[in-house]
Every structure is written in C-alpha cells, then in structure tokens.
C-alpha cells in the first residue's frame, strides 16, 4: 500500500521571490524555499509573524503580493481549483463541528474532488476513507458523531479528511494547538509517518520548538517579515537562533537536549553545585525555579549536566573531556565556592575524571560553608564518606533545609 518515495532533490512545492500578506502590506517578503516530496517542513516563529498568512497563500486562500508558487513546476495560478484540491489539502485552525455527521461521513467529505456531481461514494472512495481513518488510528471512531469527539480525536479526523483528498501536499496550521500531550505526540507521529510511507510533503506551523526539532526534516524560521533561516533543524535551531526568534530573555533552547530551559530570577543567594554525569540536571532546574543563582563545576564539557546548567544560565567551570581535570581548574572552582552561600553535592559518581571533585566538597566544609549532600551515605564507598555534611534524601528535603540555613 505504501508508495515509494521518489528520488529526493526535486521540489514538489517551490516559492520564488514570494511575498505574502495583504495589498500594500506584505507580511513576509522574498520567500525562496523549495519543499520536496515526503518532507516534513515546519514553520516556526512568534505569534503574528505571518506563518498562517504564508500557509493561506500556499493554499491559495490568499493571493500572493508578488512572486510565484509552483507545484511540480507549474504555476499555482494555472491550476484549476478542482485540480488543486487533488494535489493539496489543508487542516485549518478554525473549529468545525457540523451537526449530525458521523466520522465516516465527515472523512468522506474529503473525497469531494474525486466524486461525481452528486457526491456519491464509489467502492474505491469507501476504501480510501477506510485507509485514511486507519492512517490516523481512528477506525474505531468511524460511527461516532463528529461533534461528540474530543479535541484530539477531532484533529485526527480532520487530518483523515484532508488525507481523503489524496493530496501530495498537506498544509496544517498549528495542528497541535489545544491538544493534550498524548494527542500532540500522536498527531505528530502520524504526520511524520505520512511523510515517510506515503511520500506526502507536510508543511505545518508549530509552536513547540522542541517537537519541531525532533519531527521536522527542515524548519523555516519566520521573524520580522522575512524567513531568517531555512534548513535542517540540527543546523538552524541553535540556541542563539531560537532565542532571537522568540526574543527569549529568561529562557534558552538547548539544541543538544532539544528542549527549553527556563532561567530563574536569581533573587536568592548563589549556591555551588558539585555534579556530574546527569546527577545535577534536575537539581539545577529545581534550584533555578526556586530563584537560586547557580554556579557549578568542574564539569566535562560533554556532560549532560553541562548542557542543562548552561541552558539555565549557570556559571560553569568546564573542562574538555580529553584530559584529566588539572589542579588549576579545581582551584578556580574553589575560588567560586568561597563566594557562594552554600554547596550542594548531588551524589555524583566519584571516580575517574570526577574523583577530584570530592576535594571541592571537603574544602567547602573546611571553609565553613554549609554543605548539603544528596549522596546515599550508607551505600557510599568508604573513600567518599565525608564529614561535616548535612545529608538530605530528596530534592524537596534539600529545599527545606536550605530555606532554614541560608
């Protein structure tokens, strides 16, 4: 049943010098992008950047201000509406809830461009509708009343209706808005699958950068009336680009983690976290959320903790992973510790590169700094048992104790 994806490299949809918007007021200027068969392209940008306007122009709901759109090399203006409907289908943000329609009938409306003048369904039409319902995992919904479905189910059925047009290009305007996490993921998985198995080119506007970075083949960043970047998410979605795109000042997108970290407001004192190998990630987030300013180290630059800490705007003392951590770097960390109000030991695995970090904790204790340790004291090997620490078992306990002591 699955069609083989044609050789890549030839654009199914191409915009040349395209400006979209309204008369005398273009919203996005000079768009030059090509989209290939089976490709998932995401439009990202702040509200009002013109993502919807661009999609509406591609679907010919709006006339281009200037420039051309071609489909398989043909100018879109030369394609009759009825033919275009067999090439391109849309899922809009507008809520539709026609009464007295069961899901099967609703999806069958998508057969419109293929049926006769009274819209009678042939055997093949019915099969296509079934196939589309299967593709969005909504077969069991088919006799349900459309109006009675949940938002997530409706969205899947709307995708199925668009698929029933058997399009080569599918345009979706914020397909995951108003959906719960399960359906958000399900809809994205379905769309991803459609690209790969059916060779449909999907163009969607999304708000979740993290989802976009994981699902898209290419992304277009829309800001200030232009497409600032268009390319592979791995290259385009850098921390700096995403911050500029959304004017982040207290958030940061980590391209390594594919997620967004929220910086705290640092209204409380500065604490030093001795972490490593992922033991620090959740501690950093909790502390940042509570408003503590963060310093951390010494971390190898490829440590997960390092990415999270940087995302949260922490002061990081970092060392490249190829050599042992030298004494000078440890000394640097100690200077930092002396300026912090408390030190937290995340219970990192104290061996190898991070063995010497234990010295930091010891020194902190001798400096008279309060040291809180999440280390399991009973199970810890002898050489990592330290004195002068306040043991805590959980992060919530840690916060309570810190509240008292600082």
């Amino acid at each position: 049943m699955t069609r083989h994806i044609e050789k890549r490299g030839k654009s199914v949809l191409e915009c040349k010098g395209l400006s979209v918007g309204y008369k005398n007021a273009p919203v996005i200027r000079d768009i030059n992008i090509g989209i290939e068969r089976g490709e998932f392209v995401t439009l990202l940008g702040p509200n009002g950047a013109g993502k919807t306007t661009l999609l509406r122009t591609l679907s010919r709901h709006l006339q281009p201000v200037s420039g051309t759109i071609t489909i398989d090399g043909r100018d879109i203006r030369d394609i009759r509406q009825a033919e275009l409907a067999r090439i391109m289908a849309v899922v809009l943000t507008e809520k539709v809830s026609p009464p007295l329609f069961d899901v099967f009938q609703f999806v069958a409306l998508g057969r419109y461009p293929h049926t006769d003048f009274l819209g009678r369904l042939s055997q093949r039409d019915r099969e296509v509708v079934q196939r589309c319902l299967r593709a969005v995992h909504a077969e069991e919904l088919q006799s349900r009343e459309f109006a009675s479905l949940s938002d997530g189910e409706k969205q899947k059925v709307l995708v199925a209706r668009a698929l029933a047009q058997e399009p080569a290009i599918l345009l979706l305007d914020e397909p995951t808005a108003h959906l719960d996490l399960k359906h958000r993921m399900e809809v994205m998985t379905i769309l991803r699958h459609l690209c790969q198995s059916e060779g449909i080119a999907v163009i969607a506007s999304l708000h979740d950068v993290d989802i976009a970075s994981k699902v898209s083949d290419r992304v277009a960043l829309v800001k200030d009336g232009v497409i600032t970047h268009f390319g592979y998410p791995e290259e385009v979605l850098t921390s700096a680009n995403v911050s500029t795109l959304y004017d982040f000042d207290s958030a940061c997108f980590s391209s390594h983690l594919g997620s967004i970290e929220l910086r705290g407001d640092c209204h409380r004192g500065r604490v030093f976290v001795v972490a490593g190998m992922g033991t620090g990630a959740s501690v950093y987030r909790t502390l940042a959320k509570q408003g503590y300013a963060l310093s951390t180290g010494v971390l190898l630059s490829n440590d997960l903790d390092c990415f999270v800490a940087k995302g949260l705007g922490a002061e990081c003392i970092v060392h490249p992973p190829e050599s042992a951590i030298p004494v000078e770097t440890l000394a640097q960390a100690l200077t930092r510790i002396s300026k912090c109000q408390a030190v937290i030991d995340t219970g990192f695995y104290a061996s190898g590169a991070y063995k010497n970090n234990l010295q930091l904790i010891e020194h902190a204790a001798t400096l008279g700094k309060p040291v809180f340790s999440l280390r399991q004291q009973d199970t810890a090997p002898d050489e990592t048992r330290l004195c002068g620490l306040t043991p805590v078992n959980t992060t919530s306990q840690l916060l309570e104790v810190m509240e008292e002591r600082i």
Partner: protein
Amino acid sequence: MIGQKLSAYRHDLSHHTALSHTTIFMLLAASIAALVLLNICWGSVPLSLSRLWHCLIRPDGSTESLIVWKIRLPRALAGVLCGGGLAVSGLLLQVYFRNPVVGPFILGISSGATLMVSLVMLTSIALQIAFLGPFATALAAIAGAYGVMAVVVAIAARVKNGITLLIMGLMMGYLCHAVTAVLMALAEKQQVKGFVLWQLGSFSGFKWIEIWLLAGIGSLLVMSVYLMAKPLNAMLLGEEYALSMGIDVRRLRMAILFCACALAGMITSMAGPVAFIGLAVPHMARMVFSTSDNRVLIPATLLFGALVASGCDFAARFLLSPVELPLSAITAFFGAPVVIRLLMKKQVQL
C-alpha cells in the same frame, strides 16, 4: 479484514437507512395529499370526496364547483408550493451562514417587500397606480423583495465574510421597518388593519397565474438547489475548507443567495411574509432524517415545508371558524416551540 467487514456492514446500514428514507418520503407525500384533500373538502360549504371528484373532473357552473376551482384548490396548492419553497430557502441560508436561527427573511427580503407594500397600502401612491388594480400589492412586494435581493447579492460579491453580510441584511431590515413604522403612524386606521393582516401572510386569494408561476419558477429553482447539494455539503465545513476542496466559493455563494432570495421573494410577494416555516422546518427535517446531508435534506425540507404550511393553513381556518386566524400566528405557535425544543436538546447546532 475487520475494516472490510465494517465497511461492508456500513454499506448494508446505509442501504437500510436509504430504504427507510424512502419510506419517510412516501409517508410525507401521502400526508401532504391527505391534507390537501382535507383543505379542499372542509369549510363553510363541506364537500364529500365524491362530490369533490365530480367538481374536479366535470366542473359545472355550480357554487361548489366554483368554490373548488376559484378558492379552495388554488389556496391548497399555494400552501403546498409556498411552504416547500420557504423551507428550502431557509435551509439554504442556514447552511450558508452555518447558523441555526437563520431563516429566509434574515437578509431583509420580507422587510423590503413590506416596505413597498406599505407604500402602496398606506399612502396615496395607490391612487396614482390605480390602473394596476388588484396586482398593485403583489407588484410592490416583488419590487421590494427583489430590490433587497439585488442589494444583498451585490454586497455578497464584494464582502467575503458571511457574518458581515448577515448583519448588513439585518440592518437593511431595520431600516425598512423604520420607514414602514413611520408610514403606519401617518396612515388611517382602516388602512393599517388591512396592512397588518397582509403582514401576517395568507394563502387565500391566489390566482391561477400565480400558482403556475410558483410551480414553474419554483421547481426550476428547487432543482438548481438540488444540483448544488454536493457543494452545499462541503459548505458545512465553512468557506475556507470548501475552497480547499475545489469549490468556486464566490460563485456558489452568489448561487445560494440568488436561489434563496428568489424563492423567498416570489413567495412573499404572493402570500405575504409567512413567518417561521423557513426557520423551523429545516430543523424538523434534520431531526427526522437525523442527517446533515443536503442530498436528503433538500427534498425532505421541501416536503416537510409543504406539509407544515398546509397543516397550519388548515389550523388557521379550522380552530376558530368561521373566523380565520392569521397564518403567521399559527406558524409561530407551531414553529417557536419546535425551535426551542430542538435548541434545548442541542440538536440544531450548525
């Protein structure tokens, strides 16, 4: 496998419902025929079926024959034709505006007709056009209804937003009513009574030429509407989706408005503004057939409209006979509770 079985089952199911649809259609047609017979036979001069048969087949100069041919038959047919036409017109506009409380007069058709008729009935203009005689009212109503329709269609060609159009129609209605109200304040009592009665609609006094016009033009319009059933179904998802499915939305919008206004305008010019049939009947059809498929709803509303109008006309004549009640009062008595009940059951959301 399961999918195929389900599909086959669905096929059977739809076959089954198609069958029951046919049954409902036949029942409707039979009820209409029965009501028409009742309307003709019942009255101050009652007729037996055999006597009626005789009058129909071999009309003689007898009073009964005259009553049948001049009064009761045209009136019964007018009820059937006007009811069906108004209901289809209402359905069209409900689908176009995706709004359940829209009726054929929402765009000001009846207000335009009323305005022109008030000019004729309440002012001395009638004296100047006396040569038109009994046709003056009908012609004025036609001019008013189609004048408003021309404005609506012209606006629709420019305005894309259905809501804007709806509000413009409502505003035009208010304007026309304002003028009418001023005229009523200035007019003499006797004239006002006649005008108020006209405003409540009636199927009486139809001439055969009007019946033929209604039947001829009306059936042409209804057939055109039926040919639009497929794009009308797509319109249920809104203009944006309709466009994406390959519909020339602008042309369809003009066609919908033209057919709806032409039907409502023609009927209003002959029977006056008959309220509620265009609003309530499409909901009845939706509920009874439990579908939004316009391929079913168009014939269904046509028949339901005919049935309801005939029934209401009979009630208007029967309830307090020999006094005849105003038709719009009866249709409102009947229609308003239907709409309220449906709204309470949340079955009329469009």
